[in-house]
């Protein structure tokens, strides 16, 4: 379960303060599938970073599975990102010099454990996203859809309870985009919290819940 209470994020740009998030209350139950919809600059990426423990709120409280995250050290946050959160980015963010298999292995390296198990699981995950035959390819040798599926496999490496996707289809053609979204549908069915951040209402319409953001505030929270 995710619970944000009065969360604000203020960046200092030189001498002026810029508020990316101006006070958000949000509660997400386990195994919810929602999209965060909003135009660019509405603070949706910042919200995703805070939910994913990649960034910390300037003000307010954030509880992840009942635990207050605000006071944790960077190492503790790293551990949460490693074990509980899976990120999928618009620009894939794969290591360019590593093969698909090595990219999927990366979170497992930081978790620790035997290399053989790591390799086996990475192979299984790639097969699951339909890239079993692409394990030895580097990102530059893969299509956009394939790259994003590698990124999804990487996000799932340590069986996270939350999958966060920031404009996952933004760089994809519509066919690949649909395939990727289908993978998220499956993840939800398997019991994950899946949050898709997007400005595309067509994608948002697929999810049971839509949270609309504008200027760092929640303006609408639709449950269907």
């Amino acid at each position: 379960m995710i619970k944000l209470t009065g969360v604000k994020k203020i960046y200092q740009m030189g001498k002026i303060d810029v508020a990316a998030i101006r006070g958000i209350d949000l509660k997400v139950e386990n195994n919810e599938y929602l999209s965060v919809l909003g135009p660019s600059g509405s603070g949706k990426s910042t919200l995703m970073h805070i939910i994913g423990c990649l960034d910390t709120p300037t003000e307010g409280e954030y509880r992840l599975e009942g635990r207050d995250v605000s006071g944790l050290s960077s190492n503790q946050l790293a551990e949460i990102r490693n074990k509980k959160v899976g990120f999928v980015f618009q620009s894939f963010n794969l290591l360019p010099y590593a093969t698909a298999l090595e990219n999927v292995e990366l979170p497992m390296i930081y978790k620790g454990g035997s290399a053989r198990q790591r390799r086996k699981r990475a192979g299984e995950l790639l097969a699951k996203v339909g890239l079993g035959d692409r394990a030895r390819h580097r990102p530059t040798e893969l299509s956009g859809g394939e790259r994003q599926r590698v990124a999804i496999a990487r996000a799932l490496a340590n069986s996270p309870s939350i999958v966060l996707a920031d404009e996952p289809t933004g760089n994809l053609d519509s066919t690949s985009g649909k395939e990727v979204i289908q993978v998220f549908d499956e993840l939800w069915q398997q019991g994950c919290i899946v949050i898709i951040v997007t400005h595309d209402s067509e994608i948002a319409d697929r999810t049971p819940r839509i949270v609309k953001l504008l200027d760092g505030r929640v303006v609408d929270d639709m449950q269907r």
Partner: protein
Amino acid sequence: MINLQQFFRELKKERTRILLTILAIVWGTASVVIMLAIGEGVTRGLQRGMHGMGKGIVVVWSGETSKPFKGLGIGRRIHLREEDARMLQEQIPGIGLMSPEYIRWGAYFTWNDHSMSTRATGVYPAYGQLRNIYPQKGGRFLNKLDLKSRRRVVFLGNEVKERLFGDKEAVGETVYLNRVPFTVIGVLKKKLQTSCYSGMDQDATFIPASTFRVMFGHRHLNDIVYSPRDISRAKQVKEQVYQVMGKKYKFDPKDKDTLRMWDTIEMQEGFGKVSTGVRIFLGIIGGLTLIVAGVGLANIMYAVIRNRTREIGIKIAVGAKRRNIITEYILQSLLTVSAGGAIGLGFSWSLVKVINIIPLKQEAFQYLGRPVMSVTTALITAGVLGLVGFLAGIFPARRAASVNPVDALRCE
């Protein structure tokens, strides 16, 4: 391990820069190793030269009293006699080997139609061991029987032999010392001798002390040479020499002018300090080169990290902790340094080998010795390399670990 593969991939990407850094480290390592090897060689060379006169020995000469004692005035001459030498050895158990030394200057030697004037020395058999005098093949030094039976036998310095016999065999031949026939029993094996008293051993001749006394009728010794049984007790033994002699000749044992002493043990200790200093100095010179290389490496590491900001961000996003990132870059730095260090060590090792193959007969090389690769040298170098690699890695690595993932992922 991804780390290693990544390292080699980055190596490919930054090929020129990393190769240049490795070259700098090769050069730095080589300079440390070669400097230390030369230092080791010089030290050993000088040490060998010093041991040419004898290792751990004390030479005692006669002197004059400078303090009044029991009603006796100052300026009284204290002579050394052969009996005194024997008395010292009997009464001081701390004395190991001992030999009295008579010297006759201008002894006249002839063999066939060759003749020369040099010094004749009358000693005990222990003298050979004390003063590191070893015979060439086929000869021997004086022995107890020579001494006991006052044999007319002589041991020649190699220069003396050269002048009298040239290339001819000397052992077994009869030479005339002041017209008295002596049998040559041995010739000094050429040695490096950098310190001496009363001249170099290569120019001297040695006959039994007993024979010497009969021939020349000297009553006083030139000096006594002894070695303490235990070097750490050398000071006490010296004190005992003053006490025993003071008792016999009635002088104050605290009056150090009565007997003059040359303690090579003290000299050795001093030399040890000097040579350590020289080694540290040379090591520092080499080390400085290595530090310059280390700065270059740190520079490259900073560049690598700047180019890798996004990837570092990705790693942090998927759960890399500070120490994961720091370890990774220190490891890269150490790997670069080990590559350079290994090549550098190999290079200097071969260089030292090559130098030692070249036949250099000049005097200078005898004194300076030849460079020596020792385990200590290799260990010191490895230690310095490790330190340089660590330091060149730690600062860039810390910067890498403090990358803000949100910013890093945003930048394209």
